[in-house]
């Protein structure tokens, strides 16, 4: 009888994220049969009844591949990042949050104190007369109850532990995951450590099907609801902010095909050290005006440059949090 190839051991973990990444894994649909034929899912809290203790009991490097989605926001996220690093052969930062901080990373516009003040005191729906705040330890009769410590900063996975590969996207395109997975299963040569995989290297604009003219000039920025999109002209030429110029391909133009501008979830093209700064550079180049007052008038309509240009990448940028 032919000797059976040992099955891969795979784990999926969810840190500071919305859960969409786990759903994108489930979105393999019937390909799931190929996945489970080639791999055993040994740890996946959202889908399987596995406990942290199960991972702690494993020998080191026991898991072949771990897809870690979500940013690192608290001590629990950090503990699991380090633990899964220790137990995995290949650790993949899966999705925008673990790749660059993602949407949770926007919390770096506020400090921990500001967030707690808002959530546990000021919010309209909060009734908290005793000004109770979450404690990391609380003594009850039965013993001590613990809660993870909430950190001041949100960090990307690679800022916490050693990461082998990055699969970008919010969430990653499921087809890309299947391609990467099949490459690992078939023993194809893997790219060098630290690579972004499951994505292209060109900018979205390079392959965008929308009509572009050579003289891109912006006289006014619009919010997308202010413009009746003609469905075929470049968003920027219609005055709608689109992250296409600096964002990687790989998403199959999900947003553009849905008549929405690119938001930049796939992260910057290779060799860009600060995604938002690159975008600012591109945007400023195509504004029509030449006088300070006119330029300011055009920029007035960009109400939140930091939030727009660093929507998914604030924690990995040069100025990764507000300075107080």
């Amino acid at each position: 009888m032919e000797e059976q190839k040992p099955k891969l051991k795979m784990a999926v973990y969810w840190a500071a994220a919305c859960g969409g990444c786990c759903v994108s894994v489930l979105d393999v649909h019937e390909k799931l049969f190929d996945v489970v034929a080639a791999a055993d899912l040994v740890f996946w809290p959202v889908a399987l009844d596995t406990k942290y203790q199960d991972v702690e009991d494993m020998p080191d490097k026991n898991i072949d591949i771990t897809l870690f989605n979500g940013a690192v926001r608290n001590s629990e996220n950090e503990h699991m990042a380090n633990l899964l690093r220790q137990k995995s052969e290949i650790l993949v930062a899966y999705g925008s949050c673990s790749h660059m901080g993602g949407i949770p990373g926007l919390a770096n516009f506020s400090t921990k104190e500001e967030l707690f003040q808002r959530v546990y005191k000021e919010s309209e729906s909060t009734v908290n007369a005793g000004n109770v705040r979450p404690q990391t330890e609380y003594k009850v009769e039965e013993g001590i109850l613990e809660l993870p410590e909430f950190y001041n900063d949100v960090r990307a996975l690679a800022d916490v532990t050693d990461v082998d590969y990055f699969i970008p996207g919010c969430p990653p395109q499921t087809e890309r995951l299947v391609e990467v997975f099949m490459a690992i299963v078939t023993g194809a040569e893997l790219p060098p450590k630290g690579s972004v995989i499951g994505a292209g290297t060109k900018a979205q604009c390079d392959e965008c099907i929308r009509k572009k003219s050579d003289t891109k000039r912006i006289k006014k920025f619009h919010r997308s609801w202010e413009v009746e999109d003609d469905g075929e002209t470049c968003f920027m030429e219609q005055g709608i902010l689109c992250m296409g110029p600096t964002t990687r391909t790989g998403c199959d133009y999900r947003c553009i095909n849905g008549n929405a501008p690119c938001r930049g979830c796939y992260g910057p093209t290779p060799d860009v050290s600060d995604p938002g700064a690159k975008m600012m550079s591109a945007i400023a180049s195509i504004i029509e005006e030449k006088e300070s007052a006119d330029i300011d008038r055009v920029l007035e309509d960009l109400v939140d440059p930091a939030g727009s240009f660093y929507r998914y990448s604030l924690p990995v940028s040069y100025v990764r949090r507000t300075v107080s």
Partner: protein
Amino acid sequence: MEFNPKIIAFLCKWCSYTGADLAGTSRMEYKPNVRAIRVMCSGRIEPTFVLRALRKGADGVLICGCHPGDCHYQEGNYRCLRRYHLLQKYIQQMGIESERLKLEWISASEGKQYAELINSFTQTITELGPCHVKETMEVLT
């Protein structure tokens, strides 16, 4: 100890760097706080350069290019101007004082203006005190 600010200046080759050179060859005295970096055109100065300078510990960043209409590459300084306005909006949003980033046009013959600019900008930054970007970015958790 007296605060001695670190200032990074990006100067375009054709006008501003030549202007700075003129200040030097004319033996004008000005504050030694500026580290000048020559670039081919002020249009080459990307927001990344400015943010990296602040992250690495600069207390102020100065950008100089040719006067409007005088750019060696015709349009470069206008690009620079637009980036500067956008950057200003961004750094203020991030809690960085707008005075830390300054844009001035210096022509090749304006050695004196360059020396005065360096003195006044150094003065502004000294009064403002140290920039906290670097230390804020180092503090984790």
